[in-house]
Protein backbone atom coordinates (compact mmCIF):
# COMPACT_ATOMS: atom_id res chain seq x y z
CA UNK A 1 0.00 0.00 0.00
CA UNK A 2 1.17 3.45 -0.92
CA UNK A 3 0.27 4.94 2.46
CA UNK A 4 2.11 2.35 4.46
CA UNK A 5 5.31 3.41 2.77
CA UNK A 6 4.55 7.08 3.24
CA UNK A 7 3.65 7.31 6.89
CA UNK A 8 6.40 6.79 9.40
CA UNK A 9 7.65 8.60 12.48
CA UNK A 10 9.69 11.00 10.39
CA UNK A 11 6.65 11.97 8.30
CA UNK A 12 4.59 12.74 11.40
CA UNK A 13 7.50 14.70 12.89
CA UNK A 14 7.81 16.77 9.74
CA UNK A 15 4.06 17.38 9.56
CA UNK A 16 4.02 18.50 13.20
CA UNK A 17 6.80 21.00 12.43
CA UNK A 18 4.83 22.40 9.49
CA UNK A 19 1.74 22.62 11.72
CA UNK A 20 3.82 24.30 14.48
CA UNK A 21 2.50 21.71 16.90
CA UNK A 22 4.83 20.11 19.42
CA UNK A 23 4.19 16.39 19.88
CA UNK A 24 5.73 14.27 22.64
CA UNK A 25 7.49 11.04 21.62
CA UNK A 26 4.54 8.87 22.63
CA UNK A 27 2.18 11.15 20.69
CA UNK A 28 4.32 10.78 17.56
CA UNK A 29 4.16 7.02 18.07
CA UNK A 30 0.36 6.85 18.36
CA UNK A 31 -0.24 9.53 15.72
CA UNK A 32 1.88 7.58 13.19
CA UNK A 33 -0.30 4.49 13.64
CA UNK A 34 -3.53 6.49 13.57
CA UNK A 35 -2.64 8.59 10.54
CA UNK A 36 -1.66 5.44 8.66
CA UNK A 37 -4.93 3.74 9.58
CA UNK A 38 -7.05 6.80 8.74
CA UNK A 39 -5.40 7.39 5.36
CA UNK A 40 -5.56 3.71 4.53
CA UNK A 41 -9.28 3.71 5.27
CA UNK A 42 -9.86 6.98 3.39
CA UNK A 43 -7.80 6.03 0.32
CA UNK A 44 -10.99 4.71 -1.28
CA UNK A 45 -11.78 8.27 -2.44
CA UNK A 46 -8.96 7.83 -4.95
CA UNK A 47 -11.13 5.34 -6.81
CA UNK A 48 -13.87 7.93 -7.33
CA UNK A 49 -13.73 9.11 -10.93
CA UNK A 50 -13.83 12.87 -10.71
CA UNK A 51 -11.35 14.05 -13.33
CA UNK A 52 -13.74 16.39 -15.04
CA UNK A 53 -15.04 18.07 -11.93
CA UNK A 54 -14.64 21.83 -11.63
CA UNK A 55 -13.75 21.66 -7.99
CA UNK A 56 -12.69 25.30 -7.68
CA UNK A 57 -15.99 26.84 -8.77
CA UNK A 58 -18.04 28.20 -5.90
CA UNK A 59 -21.70 28.75 -6.42
CA UNK A 60 -21.94 31.41 -3.79
CA UNK A 61 -21.36 34.89 -5.16
CA UNK A 62 -18.48 36.71 -3.62
CA UNK A 63 -19.45 40.06 -2.26
CA UNK A 64 -17.08 42.86 -1.44
CA UNK A 65 -17.78 45.72 0.86
CA UNK A 66 -15.98 48.87 1.88
CA UNK A 67 -14.27 48.59 5.24
CA UNK A 68 -15.64 51.41 7.31
CA UNK A 69 -13.90 52.57 10.44
CA UNK A 70 -16.88 52.50 12.75
CA UNK A 71 -15.70 51.80 16.28
CA UNK A 72 -18.94 51.68 18.21
CA UNK A 73 -17.52 50.33 21.43
CA UNK A 74 -14.55 52.37 22.69
CA UNK A 75 -13.90 49.86 25.47
CA UNK A 76 -13.50 47.02 23.02
CA UNK A 77 -9.90 47.68 22.03
CA UNK A 78 -8.98 47.91 25.72
CA UNK A 79 -10.69 44.59 26.34
CA UNK A 80 -8.79 43.03 23.45
CA UNK A 81 -5.49 44.44 24.69
CA UNK A 82 -6.33 43.21 28.16
CA UNK A 83 -6.21 39.63 26.84
CA UNK A 84 -2.69 39.80 25.39
CA UNK A 85 -0.74 36.99 27.00
CA UNK A 86 2.30 39.25 27.42
CA UNK A 87 2.38 42.99 26.93
CA UNK A 88 4.37 46.08 27.62
CA UNK A 89 2.62 49.44 27.82
CA UNK A 90 0.01 49.25 25.07
CA UNK A 91 1.95 46.76 22.98
CA UNK A 92 1.90 43.01 22.53
CA UNK A 93 5.29 41.46 23.23
CA UNK A 94 6.52 38.31 21.53
CA UNK A 95 9.69 36.23 21.49
CA UNK A 96 12.22 37.14 18.81
CA UNK A 97 11.24 36.07 15.30
CA UNK A 98 14.72 35.87 13.76
CA UNK A 99 17.08 33.21 15.00
Amino acid sequence: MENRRQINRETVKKVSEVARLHLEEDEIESMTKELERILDHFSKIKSLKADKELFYVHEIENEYREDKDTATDPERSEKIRGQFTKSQDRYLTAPKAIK
Partner: protein
Amino acid sequence: MTGIQSIQNATENVHKKLEIIKKKDPEIKAFIEVYEKDAAERAKEIDKKIKTGKAGKLAGLVIAVKNNIAIKNKRLTCASKMLEAHVATYNATVVERLLKEDAIIIGSTNMDEYAAGSDTTHSAFFKTKNPTDTSRVPGGSSGGSAAAVAAEMCDAAIGSDTGGSIRCPAAFCHVFGFKPTYGAVSRYGLVDMAMSLDQIGPLAKDKETTKLIFDVIKGKDPRDPTTSVFKEKKAEIKSIGIPKEFFEGVQPDIAKSVKDRIKSLEKQYEITEISLPSVKYSVPIYYLLMSAEFSSALQRYDGLRYGAASDRTKDLYDSFEAVRGAAFGKEAKRRIILGTYITMKEFRDAWYTQTLKARSVLQSEFNKALQKVDLIVGPAMPTEPWKFGEKLDPVEMYSADILTVSANLAGLPALVEPLEHGAFQIHGRHFEDLNVFDLRV
Protein backbone atom coordinates in the same frame (compact mmCIF):
# COMPACT_ATOMS: atom_id res chain seq x y z
CA MET B 1 -46.78 27.53 18.59
CA THR B 2 -48.29 26.55 21.91
CA GLY B 3 -45.03 26.32 23.86
CA ILE B 4 -43.95 29.77 22.82
CA GLN B 5 -47.00 31.93 23.24
CA SER B 6 -47.71 30.54 26.67
CA ILE B 7 -44.74 32.36 28.24
CA GLN B 8 -46.54 35.19 29.99
CA ASN B 9 -44.05 35.59 32.79
CA ALA B 10 -40.37 35.62 31.87
CA THR B 11 -39.19 35.82 35.48
CA GLU B 12 -41.16 32.74 36.40
CA ASN B 13 -39.84 30.89 33.37
CA VAL B 14 -36.21 31.77 34.17
CA HIS B 15 -36.57 30.70 37.79
CA LYS B 16 -38.17 27.45 36.74
CA LYS B 17 -35.27 26.73 34.39
CA LEU B 18 -32.66 27.72 37.00
CA GLU B 19 -34.24 25.32 39.46
CA ILE B 20 -34.08 22.47 36.96
CA ILE B 21 -30.44 23.35 36.21
CA LYS B 22 -29.60 23.26 39.94
CA LYS B 23 -31.31 19.92 40.29
CA LYS B 24 -30.13 18.16 37.13
CA ASP B 25 -26.95 19.79 35.85
CA PRO B 26 -24.61 18.53 38.60
CA GLU B 27 -25.15 15.11 36.99
CA ILE B 28 -25.81 15.97 33.32
CA LYS B 29 -23.12 18.70 33.06
CA ALA B 30 -24.55 20.40 30.00
CA PHE B 31 -23.40 23.91 30.94
CA ILE B 32 -19.93 25.43 30.98
CA GLU B 33 -21.37 28.58 32.57
CA VAL B 34 -24.84 29.54 33.79
CA TYR B 35 -25.65 33.26 33.69
CA GLU B 36 -28.01 33.16 36.65
CA LYS B 37 -27.91 36.84 37.62
CA ASP B 38 -27.96 38.23 34.07
CA ALA B 39 -30.88 36.00 33.09
CA ALA B 40 -32.95 36.98 36.12
CA GLU B 41 -32.30 40.68 35.53
CA ARG B 42 -33.12 40.45 31.86
CA ALA B 43 -36.35 38.58 32.63
CA LYS B 44 -37.53 41.55 34.70
CA GLU B 45 -36.95 43.89 31.74
CA ILE B 46 -38.79 41.56 29.40
CA ASP B 47 -41.72 41.24 31.79
CA LYS B 48 -42.15 45.02 31.57
CA LYS B 49 -42.25 44.73 27.78
CA ILE B 50 -44.75 41.86 27.94
CA LYS B 51 -47.04 44.01 30.12
CA THR B 52 -46.93 46.89 27.65
CA GLY B 53 -47.42 44.57 24.69
CA LYS B 54 -44.07 45.53 23.15
CA ALA B 55 -42.25 42.22 23.55
CA GLY B 56 -40.44 40.51 20.67
CA LYS B 57 -41.13 37.18 18.98
CA LEU B 58 -39.05 35.20 21.51
CA ALA B 59 -40.16 37.07 24.62
CA GLY B 60 -39.19 35.17 27.73
CA LEU B 61 -37.89 32.15 25.88
CA VAL B 62 -34.88 30.71 27.71
CA ILE B 63 -32.04 29.78 25.36
CA ALA B 64 -28.67 28.08 25.89
CA VAL B 65 -25.79 28.80 23.50
CA LYS B 66 -22.96 26.48 22.48
CA ASN B 67 -19.68 27.83 23.77
CA ASN B 68 -18.13 28.42 20.34
CA ILE B 69 -20.50 31.34 19.71
CA ALA B 70 -19.54 34.77 21.04
CA ILE B 71 -21.59 36.38 23.81
CA LYS B 72 -20.20 39.76 24.79
CA ASN B 73 -18.25 39.82 28.08
CA LYS B 74 -18.69 36.07 28.57
CA ARG B 75 -16.07 33.34 28.34
CA LEU B 76 -15.74 31.89 24.85
CA THR B 77 -13.83 28.67 25.50
CA CYS B 78 -14.67 26.21 22.69
CA ALA B 79 -14.21 23.69 25.54
CA SER B 80 -10.47 24.01 25.01
CA LYS B 81 -7.61 24.73 27.39
CA MET B 82 -6.38 27.10 24.70
CA LEU B 83 -9.32 29.48 25.28
CA GLU B 84 -10.23 28.58 28.86
CA ALA B 85 -9.95 32.18 30.09
CA HIS B 86 -10.81 33.96 26.84
CA VAL B 87 -13.62 36.53 27.05
CA ALA B 88 -15.60 37.57 23.96
CA THR B 89 -15.60 41.29 23.26
CA TYR B 90 -18.66 41.28 21.01
CA ASN B 91 -21.89 39.40 20.30
CA ALA B 92 -22.25 36.95 17.43
CA THR B 93 -24.92 38.03 14.93
CA VAL B 94 -27.19 35.15 16.00
CA VAL B 95 -26.91 36.30 19.62
CA GLU B 96 -27.78 39.88 18.61
CA ARG B 97 -30.82 38.60 16.72
CA LEU B 98 -32.02 36.43 19.62
CA LEU B 99 -31.66 39.32 22.07
CA LYS B 100 -33.43 41.73 19.74
CA GLU B 101 -36.49 39.44 19.88
CA ASP B 102 -36.28 39.34 23.70
CA ALA B 103 -34.88 35.86 24.22
CA ILE B 104 -33.07 35.22 27.50
CA ILE B 105 -29.66 33.58 27.29
CA ILE B 106 -29.25 31.29 30.28
CA GLY B 107 -25.72 30.01 29.73
CA SER B 108 -23.05 28.50 27.53
CA THR B 109 -23.02 24.78 26.79
CA ASN B 110 -20.35 22.10 26.66
CA MET B 111 -19.04 20.67 23.38
CA ASP B 112 -16.21 18.67 21.88
CA GLU B 113 -13.07 20.82 21.84
CA TYR B 114 -13.35 23.19 18.84
CA ALA B 115 -16.39 21.12 17.77
CA ALA B 116 -14.09 18.22 16.82
CA GLY B 117 -16.01 15.13 17.91
CA SER B 118 -19.31 13.27 17.79
CA ASP B 119 -19.99 12.64 21.47
CA THR B 120 -18.85 15.63 23.61
CA THR B 121 -16.27 13.41 25.34
CA HIS B 122 -13.53 15.53 23.75
CA SER B 123 -14.32 18.58 25.88
CA ALA B 124 -11.18 19.59 27.78
CA PHE B 125 -13.33 20.34 30.85
CA PHE B 126 -15.78 17.51 31.51
CA LYS B 127 -18.07 14.99 29.86
CA THR B 128 -21.79 15.69 29.35
CA LYS B 129 -24.23 12.86 30.00
CA ASN B 130 -27.25 11.97 27.89
CA PRO B 131 -30.39 12.87 29.90
CA THR B 132 -32.34 10.01 28.28
CA ASP B 133 -29.81 7.47 29.61
CA THR B 134 -26.92 8.80 31.69
CA SER B 135 -24.69 5.81 30.94
CA ARG B 136 -24.59 6.99 27.31
CA VAL B 137 -23.03 9.90 25.42
CA PRO B 138 -25.23 12.82 24.36
CA GLY B 139 -23.73 12.91 20.86
CA GLY B 140 -21.76 15.84 19.58
CA SER B 141 -20.30 18.16 19.11
CA SER B 142 -23.24 20.29 20.37
CA GLY B 143 -23.85 17.71 23.12
CA GLY B 144 -24.31 20.30 25.88
CA SER B 145 -26.97 22.13 23.87
CA ALA B 146 -28.94 18.94 23.11
CA ALA B 147 -28.67 17.69 26.71
CA ALA B 148 -29.84 21.06 28.10
CA VAL B 149 -32.90 20.94 25.83
CA ALA B 150 -33.66 17.28 26.57
CA ALA B 151 -33.42 17.84 30.35
CA GLU B 152 -35.68 20.93 30.04
CA MET B 153 -33.00 23.20 31.44
CA CYS B 154 -33.89 25.65 28.63
CA ASP B 155 -36.66 26.13 26.06
CA ALA B 156 -34.25 25.86 23.14
CA ALA B 157 -30.56 25.93 22.37
CA ILE B 158 -28.19 27.10 19.67
CA GLY B 159 -25.58 24.77 18.23
CA SER B 160 -23.25 24.64 15.26
CA ASP B 161 -23.16 21.89 12.64
CA THR B 162 -20.10 21.15 10.51
CA GLY B 163 -20.72 17.45 9.81
CA GLY B 164 -23.74 16.68 11.98
CA SER B 165 -22.89 18.47 15.23
CA ILE B 166 -26.48 19.66 15.76
CA ARG B 167 -28.26 16.65 14.25
CA CYS B 168 -26.24 13.88 15.93
CA PRO B 169 -26.86 15.11 19.51
CA ALA B 170 -30.47 15.99 18.62
CA ALA B 171 -30.98 12.39 17.47
CA PHE B 172 -29.15 10.94 20.49
CA CYS B 173 -31.04 13.10 23.04
CA HIS B 174 -34.43 12.75 21.28
CA VAL B 175 -35.01 16.42 20.42
CA PHE B 176 -35.40 18.40 17.19
CA GLY B 177 -32.29 19.84 15.57
CA PHE B 178 -31.91 21.84 12.39
CA LYS B 179 -28.93 22.58 10.17
CA PRO B 180 -29.87 25.42 7.80
CA THR B 181 -28.70 25.85 4.19
CA TYR B 182 -25.07 27.02 4.06
CA GLY B 183 -25.34 30.81 3.89
CA ALA B 184 -28.80 31.05 5.49
CA VAL B 185 -27.49 32.00 8.96
CA SER B 186 -24.58 34.32 9.70
CA ARG B 187 -21.41 32.75 11.05
CA TYR B 188 -20.15 36.07 12.42
CA GLY B 189 -19.05 35.38 15.99
CA LEU B 190 -18.88 31.62 15.51
CA VAL B 191 -15.39 30.25 16.10
CA ASP B 192 -14.40 28.66 12.79
CA MET B 193 -14.05 24.91 12.62
CA ALA B 194 -14.22 24.34 8.86
CA MET B 195 -15.46 27.44 7.12
CA SER B 196 -16.98 25.88 4.00
CA LEU B 197 -19.10 23.52 6.12
CA ASP B 198 -19.98 25.32 9.39
CA GLN B 199 -23.51 26.48 9.98
CA ILE B 200 -25.34 27.65 13.12
CA GLY B 201 -28.80 26.28 13.91
CA PRO B 202 -31.42 25.65 16.63
CA LEU B 203 -32.36 22.67 18.83
CA ALA B 204 -35.68 22.41 20.69
CA LYS B 205 -38.23 19.94 22.02
CA ASP B 206 -40.80 20.74 19.34
CA LYS B 207 -40.74 21.56 15.66
CA GLU B 208 -42.49 24.94 16.00
CA THR B 209 -39.90 26.36 18.40
CA THR B 210 -37.07 25.06 16.20
CA LYS B 211 -38.62 26.76 13.18
CA LEU B 212 -39.33 30.01 15.04
CA ILE B 213 -35.72 30.32 16.21
CA PHE B 214 -34.42 29.62 12.72
CA ASP B 215 -36.78 32.33 11.44
CA VAL B 216 -35.26 34.84 13.90
CA ILE B 217 -31.57 34.04 13.28
CA LYS B 218 -31.66 33.60 9.49
CA GLY B 219 -30.88 36.20 6.86
CA LYS B 220 -28.19 38.32 5.31
CA ASP B 221 -25.46 39.80 7.47
CA PRO B 222 -22.95 42.27 6.01
CA ARG B 223 -20.38 40.88 8.47
CA ASP B 224 -20.53 37.40 6.89
CA PRO B 225 -20.22 37.66 3.10
CA THR B 226 -21.23 34.01 2.65
CA THR B 227 -24.75 34.80 3.87
CA SER B 228 -27.45 35.36 1.31
CA VAL B 229 -30.63 37.33 1.40
CA PHE B 230 -32.98 34.63 2.58
CA LYS B 231 -35.70 34.39 0.03
CA GLU B 232 -38.47 32.24 1.25
CA LYS B 233 -38.61 29.71 -1.54
CA LYS B 234 -41.55 27.48 -0.91
CA ALA B 235 -42.40 24.79 -3.34
CA GLU B 236 -45.28 22.47 -2.67
CA ILE B 237 -44.00 19.12 -1.49
CA LYS B 238 -45.16 16.38 -3.81
CA SER B 239 -42.45 13.76 -3.97
CA ILE B 240 -40.00 12.34 -1.47
CA GLY B 241 -36.83 10.41 -2.31
CA ILE B 242 -35.47 7.59 -0.17
CA PRO B 243 -31.80 6.86 -0.93
CA LYS B 244 -31.17 3.16 -0.53
CA GLU B 245 -27.61 3.94 0.61
CA PHE B 246 -28.99 5.64 3.75
CA PHE B 247 -30.07 2.30 5.18
CA GLU B 248 -26.80 0.39 4.85
CA GLY B 249 -25.47 -0.55 8.29
CA VAL B 250 -28.37 1.09 10.15
CA GLN B 251 -29.44 -0.64 13.37
CA PRO B 252 -32.62 -2.70 12.63
CA ASP B 253 -34.91 -1.02 15.19
CA ILE B 254 -33.91 2.44 13.91
CA ALA B 255 -34.43 1.35 10.29
CA LYS B 256 -37.89 0.08 11.27
CA SER B 257 -38.89 3.33 13.01
CA VAL B 258 -37.74 5.33 9.97
CA LYS B 259 -39.59 3.03 7.55
CA ASP B 260 -42.74 3.34 9.66
CA ARG B 261 -42.43 7.12 9.46
CA ILE B 262 -42.05 6.87 5.68
CA LYS B 263 -45.10 4.63 5.51
CA SER B 264 -47.11 7.32 7.28
CA LEU B 265 -46.28 9.65 4.38
CA GLU B 266 -47.31 7.29 1.58
CA LYS B 267 -50.89 8.50 1.32
CA GLN B 268 -49.99 12.14 0.98
CA TYR B 269 -46.79 12.08 -1.07
CA GLU B 270 -45.23 10.20 -3.90
CA ILE B 271 -42.41 8.09 -2.43
CA THR B 272 -39.53 7.09 -4.73
CA GLU B 273 -36.44 5.02 -4.03
CA ILE B 274 -33.36 6.85 -5.29
CA SER B 275 -29.64 6.14 -5.37
CA LEU B 276 -26.81 8.41 -4.25
CA PRO B 277 -23.76 6.18 -4.87
CA SER B 278 -21.15 8.67 -3.64
CA VAL B 279 -22.60 8.59 -0.11
CA LYS B 280 -20.21 5.69 0.48
CA TYR B 281 -17.35 8.16 0.02
CA SER B 282 -18.92 10.87 2.16
CA VAL B 283 -17.08 10.13 5.40
CA PRO B 284 -13.59 10.25 3.82
CA ILE B 285 -14.52 13.36 1.78
CA TYR B 286 -15.85 15.07 4.87
CA TYR B 287 -13.01 14.15 7.25
CA LEU B 288 -10.30 15.07 4.76
CA LEU B 289 -11.85 18.39 3.77
CA MET B 290 -12.84 19.34 7.32
CA SER B 291 -9.35 18.48 8.64
CA ALA B 292 -7.70 20.63 5.96
CA GLU B 293 -9.91 23.59 6.88
CA PHE B 294 -9.63 22.82 10.61
CA SER B 295 -5.82 22.81 10.58
CA SER B 296 -5.90 26.15 8.79
CA ALA B 297 -8.52 27.66 11.15
CA LEU B 298 -6.53 26.63 14.23
CA GLN B 299 -3.29 28.22 13.01
CA ARG B 300 -4.42 31.49 14.62
CA TYR B 301 -3.96 30.12 18.13
CA ASP B 302 -0.38 31.09 18.80
CA GLY B 303 -0.48 32.01 22.50
CA LEU B 304 0.31 35.67 21.89
CA ARG B 305 -2.75 37.82 21.36
CA TYR B 306 -5.14 35.81 23.50
CA GLY B 307 -5.66 32.37 24.95
CA ALA B 308 -3.14 30.15 26.70
CA ALA B 309 0.33 31.62 27.14
CA SER B 310 3.54 29.90 26.19
CA ASP B 311 6.19 29.30 28.82
CA ARG B 312 8.92 28.97 26.19
CA THR B 313 10.59 32.12 24.94
CA LYS B 314 13.59 30.87 22.92
CA ASP B 315 12.11 32.19 19.69
CA LEU B 316 8.73 32.81 18.12
CA TYR B 317 8.21 29.37 16.55
CA ASP B 318 9.44 27.51 19.60
CA SER B 319 6.88 29.42 21.62
CA PHE B 320 4.05 28.64 19.12
CA GLU B 321 4.86 24.93 19.05
CA ALA B 322 5.02 24.66 22.81
CA VAL B 323 1.73 26.37 23.61
CA ARG B 324 -0.15 24.54 20.85
CA GLY B 325 1.30 21.20 21.92
CA ALA B 326 0.30 21.81 25.54
CA ALA B 327 -3.14 23.37 25.06
CA PHE B 328 -4.79 21.32 22.28
CA GLY B 329 -6.41 17.99 23.07
CA LYS B 330 -5.84 14.67 21.33
CA GLU B 331 -8.64 14.82 18.74
CA ALA B 332 -7.85 18.43 17.76
CA LYS B 333 -4.18 17.44 17.31
CA ARG B 334 -5.12 14.41 15.23
CA ARG B 335 -7.16 16.58 12.85
CA ILE B 336 -4.46 19.25 12.64
CA ILE B 337 -1.92 16.58 11.67
CA LEU B 338 -4.26 14.96 9.12
CA GLY B 339 -5.25 18.33 7.61
CA THR B 340 -1.69 19.59 7.44
CA TYR B 341 -0.48 16.34 5.87
CA ILE B 342 -3.02 16.31 3.02
CA THR B 343 -2.41 19.98 2.15
CA MET B 344 1.40 19.73 2.08
CA LYS B 345 2.88 20.34 -1.34
CA GLU B 346 3.98 16.70 -1.75
CA PHE B 347 0.60 15.18 -0.98
CA ARG B 348 -1.86 17.91 -1.96
CA ASP B 349 -2.81 16.67 -5.43
CA ALA B 350 -3.31 13.09 -4.36
CA TRP B 351 -5.41 13.96 -1.33
CA TYR B 352 -6.74 17.51 -1.00
CA THR B 353 -7.47 18.22 -4.68
CA GLN B 354 -9.01 14.78 -5.13
CA THR B 355 -11.18 15.47 -2.06
CA LEU B 356 -12.43 18.76 -3.53
CA LYS B 357 -13.31 17.00 -6.76
CA ALA B 358 -15.05 14.20 -4.90
CA ARG B 359 -17.08 16.80 -2.99
CA SER B 360 -18.26 18.23 -6.32
CA VAL B 361 -19.39 14.77 -7.43
CA LEU B 362 -21.40 14.34 -4.25
CA GLN B 363 -22.87 17.84 -4.51
CA SER B 364 -24.07 17.33 -8.07
CA GLU B 365 -25.52 13.93 -7.17
CA PHE B 366 -27.67 15.50 -4.45
CA ASN B 367 -28.64 18.46 -6.63
CA LYS B 368 -29.66 16.18 -9.49
CA ALA B 369 -31.72 14.01 -7.15
CA LEU B 370 -33.44 17.12 -5.78
CA GLN B 371 -34.50 18.07 -9.29
CA LYS B 372 -36.59 14.89 -9.34
CA VAL B 373 -37.83 14.83 -5.76
CA ASP B 374 -38.72 17.67 -3.38
CA LEU B 375 -37.21 16.18 -0.23
CA ILE B 376 -34.72 13.44 0.61
CA VAL B 377 -35.37 11.54 3.82
CA GLY B 378 -33.82 8.76 5.87
CA PRO B 379 -32.38 8.00 9.31
CA ALA B 380 -30.24 10.60 11.10
CA MET B 381 -27.78 8.33 12.92
CA PRO B 382 -27.09 4.65 12.17
CA THR B 383 -27.02 3.64 15.85
CA GLU B 384 -28.36 4.55 19.27
CA PRO B 385 -25.94 6.62 21.40
CA TRP B 386 -22.97 4.58 22.51
CA LYS B 387 -21.90 4.08 26.11
CA PHE B 388 -19.03 6.07 27.59
CA GLY B 389 -15.72 4.48 26.66
CA GLU B 390 -17.26 2.30 23.95
CA LYS B 391 -15.92 4.09 20.85
CA LEU B 392 -12.20 4.73 21.14
CA ASP B 393 -10.94 4.10 17.63
CA PRO B 394 -11.05 7.29 15.49
CA VAL B 395 -12.04 5.52 12.25
CA GLU B 396 -14.96 3.84 14.00
CA MET B 397 -16.07 7.14 15.52
CA TYR B 398 -15.80 8.97 12.18
CA SER B 399 -17.94 6.30 10.46
CA ALA B 400 -20.89 7.11 12.74
CA ASP B 401 -21.27 10.43 10.86
CA ILE B 402 -22.10 8.80 7.51
CA LEU B 403 -25.71 9.99 7.43
CA THR B 404 -25.13 13.59 8.48
CA VAL B 405 -22.01 14.78 6.60
CA SER B 406 -23.63 14.89 3.15
CA ALA B 407 -25.89 17.82 4.08
CA ASN B 408 -22.80 19.86 4.97
CA LEU B 409 -20.81 18.79 1.93
CA ALA B 410 -23.73 19.71 -0.33
CA GLY B 411 -24.74 22.78 1.74
CA LEU B 412 -28.33 21.56 2.11
CA PRO B 413 -30.83 22.22 4.92
CA ALA B 414 -31.53 19.18 7.11
CA LEU B 415 -33.98 18.71 9.97
CA VAL B 416 -33.83 15.90 12.51
CA GLU B 417 -37.00 14.81 14.31
CA PRO B 418 -36.99 12.19 17.06
CA LEU B 419 -38.69 8.81 16.54
CA GLU B 420 -39.38 5.92 18.89
CA HIS B 421 -36.00 4.47 17.94
CA GLY B 422 -33.42 6.84 16.52
CA ALA B 423 -34.39 9.87 14.49
CA PHE B 424 -35.72 10.89 11.08
CA GLN B 425 -33.78 13.26 8.83
CA ILE B 426 -35.30 15.48 6.14
CA HIS B 427 -33.11 17.19 3.52
CA GLY B 428 -34.44 19.97 1.32
CA ARG B 429 -33.16 22.04 -1.59
CA HIS B 430 -30.90 25.06 -1.05
CA PHE B 431 -32.80 27.89 0.66
CA GLU B 432 -36.00 25.86 0.78
CA ASP B 433 -35.37 25.48 4.50
CA LEU B 434 -38.99 26.11 5.42
CA ASN B 435 -40.11 23.15 3.33
CA VAL B 436 -38.37 20.63 5.56
CA PHE B 437 -40.57 21.80 8.45
CA ASP B 438 -43.74 21.28 6.45
CA LEU B 439 -43.71 17.53 6.08
CA ARG B 440 -46.98 16.35 7.54
CA VAL B 441 -47.31 13.46 9.96
